[in-house]
């Protein structure tokens, strides 16, 4: 009993007493105010990690979504307007010096076509064989082979019922064979 405190503080009073650190902080604040220093304002930190994660995911998605839409499509470079607006069968200026190669395309079925090369007097049932014939007949000054200059006008003359697939395949075969003036004629019938 001799070691027991004479007047122990009750539990409720202990809780009310500010601790040493809090007192120090309050004293410091008072000193700063007396000196004229403005009190330091504290800003609560904002955790934006998840927001950034989401933003980057969204960004990635949109990049992929916007780029993937027409990825497989491409353009076939052409000189249609130069040759006469895609509607003429007479590129007159060129015809004076070169021979016109007419490709008459007709459809046997939705995906089967016959291509007649008038100047050669030959019919082809595949665009691969058309390409081979056109390439073979293109003039090659180095080898001394072929008949037609690469500036010779190639006019694609599809029948009216030929699907666009057949027309474009003939066009592709002609530019694959490295002819430079390829155009389209008006509908023959």
């Amino acid at each position, binding site marked *: 009993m001799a070691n027991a405190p004479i007047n122990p503080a009750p539990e409720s009073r202990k809780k009310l007493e500010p601790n040493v650190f809090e007192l120090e902080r309050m004293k410091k604040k008072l000193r700063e105010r007396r000196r004229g220093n403005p009190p330091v304002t504290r800003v609560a930190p904002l955790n934006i990690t998840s927001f*950034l994660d989401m933003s980057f995911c969204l960004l990635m998605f949109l990049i992929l979504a916007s780029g993937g839409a027409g990825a497989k499509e491409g353009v076939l470079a052409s000189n*249609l307007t130069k040759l006469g607006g895609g509607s003429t069968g007479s590129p007159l200026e060129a015809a004076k010096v070169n021979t016109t190669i007419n490709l008459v395309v007709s459809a046997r079925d939705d995906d089967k076509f016959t291509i007649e090369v008038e100047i050669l007097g030959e019919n082809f049932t595949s665009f691969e064989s058309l390409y081979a014939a056109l390439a073979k007949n293109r003039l090659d000054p180095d080898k001394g082979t072929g008949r037609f200059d690469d500036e010779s006008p190639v006019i694609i003359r599809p029948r009216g019922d*030929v699907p*666009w697939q057949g*027309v474009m395949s003939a066009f592709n075969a002609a530019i694959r064979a490295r002819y430079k003036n390829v155009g389209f004629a008006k509908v023959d019938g």
Partner: protein
Amino acid sequence: MSRSKKVALPRPELNLTAMMDLVLNLITFFVLVANFAAASLPALAPPHPDKSLAKAETIPDRLTVSVMADEKLKGFAGKMKVGITEVGKGDIGGMIHVLEKEVKISAAVAVCVRADKSIRYSDLEPIMSAVAGTGVQTIHLVAIADEKK
């Protein structure tokens, strides 16, 4: 008696404001671009020639004329789209009007004709003639490009 004084080191902080600005701007840009791209390219099946020479090029001043197949009549042309402007079936006059406006804005505009592979040539030829008649300098034809080997 030596007194050791603890020096509080400055805590490094990363200022994310500029990055967040940029990210949000990029998101806005891609949202808009994605919408315009989808709006100007309606769903259709362009032709796919064997050993296609079509190249997925970026043409700077490009205007796409899309010709869709008719939903009911097989082989016939349906609605058209010039850029983001929708033009009714067979309305070649409407298409010319839109194209002429574009040519006035930029004379060097390149027109890409993008048509469904099933459409008959008799339906497409008048459209191509009309495009050429508007004074467009360059016309390209859209096809499916072969995948790189």
